[in-house]
């Protein structure tokens, strides 16, 4: 309780009062109250769709609220424009780095508040000097004349953060999942910046990662379904507590789909080989990839970003066909150069970027679901029969538990999880023999994730083989029969279900082969 007295002494810089924002289908932010104090790092955590981003977007003037007020230093605002918010000292760093790609580092940092000479022209010398000084202080060693698009995403994001903290030097800074695109090393730099500059600032820190929140924040607010569930000092919290607050129904966490399914390792010799890769190679991306997938089998590709997992799938699907080596589908050698050729052989690909590559958001749920099989819904004159299309879409909506008002609703109004179910339903409709699932659970909340994993395990494996990747290992371990570990484009090892061990697989993914072998030997 000593701690909470300490908090009371800190000056409140900004407040949110009964803030509400409604979107079609959801109340994104529901009557939320929050205080942001000087010198305090306020973490906000919650599932996807909990309302974190909407809340801070309203707070920083990007979108208008439907109800409620924002109080900044005793001034009450019914709504804020972005420019007003900025002049009130609210700065936001979004998930994707907001930068001008063709401009240099120093131009980006000082845009739009350039330092001017007395005659009104921009003082580039001074800007360059200051940029160098700031980068030195932070401990970054990059050439300030580099163009932004020549830098890594992680570095771009870090520079956006540095801009808020050092150049804008705003008293209130919102970091909306800014750390997600940072590398491990850059993340440490972010933490040191925050620790150094937190003194006179209120920092709002949004993240998906509980360890990060516990590490850096002073106070944590948990959001669920747009409501504020709890605001608590970080001292009174640990991982389990936060997780149960986030999920609200902790039992679902222990549920393992894999335990119910039989071990396929012995049976699979009898089964049909669906996919056979022989010495697949793409210079600089992957090499010596040999892999077999049987019918009814789920093979997981475990690897970090850049390990070649996505590229291998894209090669099989005909999206990225510049490889050498052999791909056999059902015993027949194929080389797809376009996705429609793969679709003809009933090989389907679920793209990692759902919004950009998966759905057509202005079209209806029905049109999205039927796009692959329109051919089969035609009569002998080539006309698409409406009721057949409706039957198909209704069947898929039911089977995949897609939550929409009716099949004619546009996909853009659905939540991320439901959009993903639409994409799954779409590729399922063609009755494929091979699924290539690239991060099917990316950016989806835990309960929907379980539904999707169940669908994959129970429905998709019926007549097909599956190759899939996920960003976290837990999902792979839940449903895969075999996990292939990739590191820098090479297969490090294959592990069958009975030998799954998260730590070993994780070490393999990090390229710690020696360490890995030692542990194996130790067994």
């Amino acid at each position, binding site marked *: 309780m000593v701690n909470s007295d300490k908090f009371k002494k800190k000056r409140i810089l900004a407040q949110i009062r009964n803030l509400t924002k409604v979107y079609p289908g959801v109340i994104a932010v529901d009557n939320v109250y929050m205080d942001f104090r000087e010198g305090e790092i306020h973490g906000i955590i919650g599932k996807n769709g909990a309302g974190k981003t909407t809340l801070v977007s309203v707070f920083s003037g990007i979108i208008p609220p439907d109800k409620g007020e924002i109080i900044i230093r005793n001034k009450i605002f019914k709504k804020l424009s972005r420019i007003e918010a900025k002049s009130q000292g609210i700065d936001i760093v979004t998930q994707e780095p907001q930068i001008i790609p063709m401009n240099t580092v120093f131009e980006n940092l000082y845009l739009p508040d350039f330092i001017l000479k007395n005659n009104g022209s921009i003082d580039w010398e001074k800007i360059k000097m200051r940029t160098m000084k700031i980068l030195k202080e932070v401990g970054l060693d990059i050439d300030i004349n580099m163009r932004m698009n020549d830098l890594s995403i992680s570095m771009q994001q870090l520079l956006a953060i540095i801009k808020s903290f050092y150049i804008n030097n705003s008293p209130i800074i919102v970091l909306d999942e800014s750390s997600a695109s940072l590398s491990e090393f850059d993340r440490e730099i972010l933490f040191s910046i925050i620790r150094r500059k937190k003194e006179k600032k209120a920092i709002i820190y949004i993240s998906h990662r509980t360890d990060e929140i516990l590490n850096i924040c002073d106070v944590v607010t948990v959001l669920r379904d747009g409501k504020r569930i709890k605001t608590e000092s970080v001292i009174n919290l640990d991982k389990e507590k936060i997780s149960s607050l986030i999920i609200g129904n902790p039992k679902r966490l222990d549920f393992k789909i894999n335990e119910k399914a039989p071990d396929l390792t012995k049976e699979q010799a009898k089964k049909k080989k669906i996919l056979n890769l022989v010495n697949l190679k793409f210079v600089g991306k992957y090499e010596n990839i040999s892999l077999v997938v049987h019918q009814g089998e789920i093979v997981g590709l475990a690897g970090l970003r850049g390990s070649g997992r996505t590229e291998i799938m894209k090669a099989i699907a005909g999206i990225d066909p510049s490889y050498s080596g052999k791909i056999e589908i059902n015993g027949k050698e194929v080389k797809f150069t376009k996705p429609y050729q793969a*679709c003809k052989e009933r090989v389907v690909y679920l793209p990692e970027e759902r919004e950009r590559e998966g759905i057509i958001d202005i079209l209806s749920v029905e049109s999205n679901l039927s796009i692959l099989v329109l051919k089969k819904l035609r009569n002998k004159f080539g006309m698409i029969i409406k009721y057949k299309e409706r039957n198909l879409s209704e069947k898929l909506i039911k089977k995949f538990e897609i939550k929409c008002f009716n099949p004619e609703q546009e996909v853009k109004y659905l939540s991320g999880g439901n959009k993903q179910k639409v994409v799954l339903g779409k590729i399922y409709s063609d009755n494929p023999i091979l699924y290539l699932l690239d991060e099917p659970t990316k950016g989806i909340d835990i309960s929907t994730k379980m539904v999707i994993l169940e669908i994959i395990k129970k429905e998709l494996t019926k007549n097909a083989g599956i190759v899939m990747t996920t960003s976290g290992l837990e999902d792979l371990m839940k449903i895969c029969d075999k996990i292939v570990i990739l590191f820098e484009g090479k297969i490090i090892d294959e592990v069958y279900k009975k030998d799954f061990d998260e730590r070993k697989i994780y070490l393999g993914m990090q390229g710690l082969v020696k360490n890995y072998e030692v542990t194996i030997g130790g067994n």
Partner: protein
Amino acid sequence: MTKIKLKILDHIIWVILVILIIVNAIIIPRFFTYGNLINILYHSSVLGFLVIAESLCLITGNFDLSIESTVAFAPAVGVLLMMKWVPGFSPILAIIVTLAVGALIGLLNGIMIAKFNINPFLQTLSFLIILRGLTYKLIPMSIFNLPQKFIFLGSQRVLFNIPVAVLVMLLAIYLVHIMLTKRMYGRSLIAIGGNERASFISGIDIKKVKIIVFVISGMLAAFAGIIAVGRQQTITNAMGEGLVFMAFAGAVMGGVSLNGGVGSALGMLGGLLVLGVIDNSLTMLGVDAFMVYAVKGMLIFVAIMLDNSKTKMREMILFKEELIKLGHSARDA
């Protein structure tokens, strides 16, 4: 109730058309006669084909500026074959050649845009200028006394005094309706306009679909040219000038989105007829021809504002519906 509201909003152009017709029928004595209404359709027929052509390109997220030059260039080749180059060339064959020239122009546009990723604006702009230049060169003077079979489509009237051109245009609208709602190809057009990358990954041959849409567009423009030649019973080198902007106007007023992925045949017809009625009524009121042009321009402006508020109104209606539903479910729980 919500469904009806949304339906009305989707067909708002028809509501406007009906209001326009009623107002005109009251203030202009000879407006609401069979002859005049047929006349409006007849005068709209050339633009009609261009509106369809432009709309189809817009639905895929592309556009075609070159159609207005094709209107003159394609029939010019056909007419010259008959009248100058090959004595005794069959008029029917000349029509086929005209359509083939239109298709060829479309094919070139399509290949450059789909295969070589040339920006559709630049590609079709260059053809707009090239073809107009060639037309000036080919027919420096108007050519008269064209064979009856060649001008049949544009000049003849059949049953109930309805021009063939009108029937053909309505048939084309109907075919486009079938294509967009019931045919694989039409659905692929809409899908590509909605999200090209997702369509590609879903196994649509997007290059083929795009090339074909430009071929269709070129052929429709050539057809519009044949009708235009028939209507004025002569071919001039200025035929079609300025029409592409009206084609854009008709398409946008009919609810076709400039971002692609949205559009219906019924809407195209509505947009076309609104333009036709305005044109007709202003002329009958004796408004100066240049003023008519300006008024049409203002109308396009109004259409854009309308389109803008339409999306907002649509979201408002949906939003209210959601609120009611959410309120109910909250009470139930």
